């Protein structure tokens, strides 16, 4: 691969990383701040357990503190997963198959960890 095309590939990746991070962080910070505010306004305390995804969505839609806080945590933990997934797509577009493979391996290990946590 020539120097020029490698540079433009790197720039594409950087731009993608930048977008995923900004959106992920904004969503999770907003949900967490809203959750803390709701918790302090409702009963002056924060929940001690994370809800299941379904329950978090339901409670979050009702603007309940536990739902908002769980959704904020999901968004935060998922941001790096999305960032890695996005990099795979960018490397694929650039036809850099070696890095498609490397990045898919990283994502596989991350998913294995998520799965091992459920056992």
């Amino acid at each position, binding site marked *: 691969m020539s120097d020029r095309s490698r540079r433009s590939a790197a720039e594409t990746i*950087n731009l993608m*990383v*930048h977008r995923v991070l900004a959106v992920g962080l904004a969503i999770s910070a907003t949900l967490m701040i809203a959750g803390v505010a709701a918790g302090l306004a409702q009963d002056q305390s*924060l929940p001690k357990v994370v809800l299941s995804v379904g329950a978090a969505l339901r409670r979050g839609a009702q603007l309940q503190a536990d739902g908002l806080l769980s959704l904020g945590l999901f968004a*935060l*933990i998922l941001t790096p*997963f999305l960032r890695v997934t996005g990099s795979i797509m960018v490397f694929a577009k650039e036809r850099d198959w070696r890095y498609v493979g490397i990045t898919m391996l990283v994502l596989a290990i*991350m998913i294995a960890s998520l799965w091992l946590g459920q*056992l």
Partner: protein
Amino acid sequence: MEALVILAVAVVVGVIGSMLGIGGGLVLIPILTLFLDVPMKTAIGASLVSVIATSSAAQLVYVGRGLTHTRLGMTLEITTTMGALVGGLIAVHVSGRSLQVVFAAILVYAAFAMSSRRVDDAGFVPTGVLDTSYIDPRSNAAVAYGVRRLPWGMSASFVAGNLAGMLGVGGGLVQVPLMNLVMEMPLKAAFATSNFMIGVTAATSAALYFGRGLIDPHVAIPTALGVLVGAQLGPRLAGRMHSATLRWAFQLVMLVFAAQMIWKAVR
């Protein structure tokens, strides 16, 4: 109200940590466990969540400057995430007390490692392995470099990931000197790339902790929000404080915390 106390502590730790260039987890975990009676594994889970938040926030700045070496980061991430997975599995299976003892040892190492850091960005050259370049923000000159000893880097990254997954600290403590001294890359690029990696590493072990019910929103959320805010304030306050004094005071605090953690674990 306990949440507000944790929030305030996390803001202060975020400020100091970002001024000294170390992750907040090293000081947050001792404060949470020693003074606020948070169980060790809950404190580790909270620290992991805050590492993801600060890594993502800092990357917004680094990525724009082109300092992060994404290909190298992804390559090293193969062994770092493996280390994080194994470290996370160890952490959920051993006792909180054993983790405290290992943590104390790492604190002592970190306190001493803080004094000996190479601050040299000159004399780096392309090596033919993962060559890249960035524009230095101070001099506006392009710095081209490659990496050396990639196999060593990958092996040591497993250890960095393992510590991160097991103890909830970022792993930059091992990763930055590794990239700078062993793999011979410029310090600025090493900081940015290490920062890029620790978010992915922390998310790997946080996913495992999350499944095991070790992420407690009531501790993790104020910690993450506080460190996030503190880390934004730190660089703005940095000019007004004497950083050598601050560093010295911080090293002393880390050693005291290490002693207290060992005392608490064996008592």
